[in-house]
């Protein structure tokens, strides 16, 4: 399985945030995207997830046999927000995502096992809204575990996490990579991962292409 991006160009409104972004990841590798505030890290991740259309360039996920795989079915996206309902219990939230995600790409942990894995044993029956910011983020990470998908797209996964949880997170990603997964993460903080590629976005934006001035 490989994830290959070629010459990606991302735009927000009138300005090109990045251009000519390319990388190639294979099983067991991770990519860390860094850059100052507003440099386009989140934009790049949403683009990889298919939530935004790239201005040009392409991002392909190919299976071990070379077949092109649809990213939405083989990738987990974790955004700035946690995708959990405050009203529902933690276990209900995770159970929902487990059945929602469990379309093709194999098995994941059980809900309880995932909660254990993020070190929050015992919160299963609490409404999600009762948790602290860091605990909420960790439950959001547990979503990645309940349904196994090879590619993880993580946007500031460690926001609001304390030191210990940072380590826990590093272990989770490490495990995922060891099992042959891929990970792409945007972050300001060092993730404590080894064996990673990194991509630095400059934060210097150019106005949209000179020939055809942008419309928006």
């Amino acid at each position: 399985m490989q994830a290959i991006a070629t010459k990606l160009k991302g735009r927000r409104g009138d300005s090109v945030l990045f251009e000519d972004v390319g990388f190639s990841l294979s099983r067991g590798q991770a990519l860390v995207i860094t850059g100052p505030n507003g440099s386009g890290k989140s934009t790049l991740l949403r683009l990889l997830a298919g939530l935004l259309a790239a201005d040009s360039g392409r991002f392909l996920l190919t299976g071990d046999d070379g077949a092109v795989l649809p990213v939405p079915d083989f990738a987990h996206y974790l955004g700035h927000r946690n995708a959990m309902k405050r009203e529902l219990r933690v276990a209900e939230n995770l159970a929902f995502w487990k059945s929602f995600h469990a379309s093709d790409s194999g098995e994941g942990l059980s809900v309880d096992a995932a909660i254990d894995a993020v070190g929050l044993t015992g919160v299963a029956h609490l409404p999600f809204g009762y948790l602290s910011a860091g605990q909420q983020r960790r439950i959001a990470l547990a979503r990645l575990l309940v349904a196994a998908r090879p590619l993880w797209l993580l946007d500031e996964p460690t926001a609001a996490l304390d030191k210990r949880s940072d380590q826990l997170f590093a272990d989770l990603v490490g495990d995922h990579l060891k099992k042959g997964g891929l990970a792409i993460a945007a972050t300001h903080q060092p993730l404590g991962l080894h064996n990673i590629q990194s991509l630095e976005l400059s934060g210097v934006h150019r106005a949209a292409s000179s020939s055809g001035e942008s419309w928006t």
Partner: protein
Amino acid sequence: MMSHEAFVFVSYASTAVTLAGLLIGILLDGRARRAELAELEAQGVRRRSGPARGAGS
């Protein structure tokens, strides 16, 4: 009640007023936009696709 002429007159007059209002609104809007653009350019904000090419601005 009003005479029939009055109805005709009111129709034509209100049509004229509405259309004129629309026209004036659009003209004023255009003026305001141009003023904003000038203000921004005076502040040194440039479109980075090169020098602002005139037409309309």
